[in-house]
C-alpha cells in the first residue's frame, strides 16, 4: 500500500468517525430541545385526623385535645355498629345516612387514628379520598379529570398552580348527600321579573 493511499484511508476513517460522532451527538440534542414547560402543582385539600376536645386546658392555657385512639385503645370494636343509636356511650347523637356501611367499613378497628380500605390497607385521614374512591369510582374518575369538585387557581398550569377541594369539603362522610341551601339573590333585569308580577 502506498503512503498516499494509506493517508487517504486515514482521512476517510477520520471523516466517517466524525460523521458517526456527529450523528450520535445529534440524537440527545433533539430530545433536550423538547423541554416541556414546568407544571405548577395541583394541591388537594387535606384534613388531618379529628381530635376530641378534652374539656381542660394544658399548661400553656390551650384547650387540650385527645386522639381517637386514646379511648378506642381500651374498647373492643363491635363490627355490628352502624349508627349513633347503636352505642351506649359517646357519638350517640351522630347522624348516619350512608348506605349500608357500618363504622368499621371505613374506620380501622386496629388503630382509630387511621382509616382502613376494604382490603385491610391503612389510609391516613389526609388521604380519605382513596377510601371514598373504593365505592365512588365514577366520581373519582371525574375528579381526576377536573370535572367534579370545586377548585380555584389557574386553568393553565404552566402559569400557576391550582387548589382543589377533597370529597369531605362538600360531603359529610356520615351524611354524604349534598345539603340543600338557600340560593344567592337573583339578578333583576327585565327578563327576571318574578312570575306572576304585573306591569305597574
Amino acid at each position, binding site marked *: 500500500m502506498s503512503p498516499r493511499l494509506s493517508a487517504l484511508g486515514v482521512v476517510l476513517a477520520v471523516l466517517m468517525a466524525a460523521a458517526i460522532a456527529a450523528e450520535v451527538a445529534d440524537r440527545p440534542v433533539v430530545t433536550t430541545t423538547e423541554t416541556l414547560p414546568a407544571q405548577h402543582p395541583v394541591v388537594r385539600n387535606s384534613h388531618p385526623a379529628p381530635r376530641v376536645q378534652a374539656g381542660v386546658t394544658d399548661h400553656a392555657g390551650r384547650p387540650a385535645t385527645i386522639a381517637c385512639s386514646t379511648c378506642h385503645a381500651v374498647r373492643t370494636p363491635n363490627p355490628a355498629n352502624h349508627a349513633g343509636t347503636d352505642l351506649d356511650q359517646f357519638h350517640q347523637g351522630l347522624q348516619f345516612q350512608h348506605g349500608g356501611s357500618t363504622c368499621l367499613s371505613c374506620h380501622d378497628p386496629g388503630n382509630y387514628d387511621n382509616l382502613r380500605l376494604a382490603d385491610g390497607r391503612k389510609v391516613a385521614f389526609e388521604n380519605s379520598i382513596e377510601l371514598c374512591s373504593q365505592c365512588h369510582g*365514577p366520581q373519582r374518575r*371525574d*375528579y381526576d*379529570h*377536573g*370535572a*367534579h*369538585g*370545586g*377548585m*380555584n*387557581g*389557574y*386553568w*393553565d398550569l*404552566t*402559569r*400557576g398552580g*391550582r387548589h382543589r*377541594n377533597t370529597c369531605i369539603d*362538600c360531603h359529610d362522610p356520615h351524611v354524604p348527600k*349534598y345539603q*340543600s*341551601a*338557600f*340560593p*344567592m*339573590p*337573583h*339578578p*333583576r*333585569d327585565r*327578563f*327576571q*321579573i*318574578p*312570575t306572576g308580577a304585573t306591569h305597574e
Partner: protein
Amino acid sequence: MSDLTRRTVLKAAGATLGATAFAAAIAPLTQWKPAESVDEFLRKHYKELAPDELDAICRRVEAEAKTSRGIDVHVAAPQPIPGVQYGYALNLSICVGCRRCAEACHTENNHDRPSHNSYIRVFELDNGSIDLATGDATYEHPVPAKGKYYMPVQCHHCANAPCTKVCPVEATWKEQDGIVVVDYNWCIGCRYCEAACPYHARRFNWKKPEIPNDEINPDQGYLSNRVRPQGVMEKCTFCLHRTREGKLPACLEACPTGARVFGNLADPDSELRWVLANKRVFILKEDLGTKPTFFYFFDK
C-alpha cells in the same frame, strides 16, 4: 312727527321675541361639557390600535376613574394567548342552582348593584323538560329542589356569532382565542346585538352602573370588567382579564360542586376535551347553527 310706524314696531318686537326664544333654546348648550376627550373622539378602532395607542387609552380610562370617582384602578388589555381556543362545559347533573356563579360574576365584573346584574341567568326547570320558556330564573327557595334541575345560561361565545354580524359599527367582534368582546367606547347602544342573541346573553346599561367605590374590583380589563358607561351593551367575556393570564374564570371558582369545566379546546390533553370526548354533551339551540364554544353535559 316721528317715523315710528306700526310696521317698524312690529318688526322690532318680532326680532326681540325671536332672539329671546333662540337664546332660551340654546341655553342648555352653555351647560354642555364634552363627555369624552378630543383624543377619545378622534381615536382609531380597537383592532387598528398600535400597542402604545392601546396603552394610552387604558391609562386614560384609569385617569377617568381617578377624576370621576377618586379611586385607583388598574386597566389592562391582555391579548389572546397563541394556540388557545377557550371553551366551557357545564355539568347539569351536579349543578345545584345555588347561583354563586351569578353572584361571583356580579362582584368580579363591576356590575350595577341596584339591579344586581350578572352575565349568568340560572333557570330552574322540571326534570325531563328542556323548554326554557317554562324555566324560572327568579326562584327563591332552598336548592336543589325536588324534581327540578338547574341550567345556568351565559354567553356561548359562538363560532358563528349572530350578535357580531348585526353590529352596524363593528363595536363587537370575536377575538383570536374565541372570546366575543365589546368595545364600550365604540358601542352606539342600538341593541341590535341584544336582539340577535338567541341566548339572551347580552345586557344593556340603561343607566350608569351604580357601585360603591369600596366595592369596585380594581383589577380591570379594557374589554371586560372596567366600569361601563351608560347606554352601551355588555356581556360575559369569560373573564378575559383573568383567563388570558392563565387563571380560571370567577364563576368557576365560585362553583361549589365543580359543575363548571373551563379550558383550552385546542389542547387535546385538556380537561375540557376529556369531558367533550367522554360525557353526554349537548348544545343549547344547536339547530340555530351558532356553533357555541359553551357546552352542557350530563354524568349519566
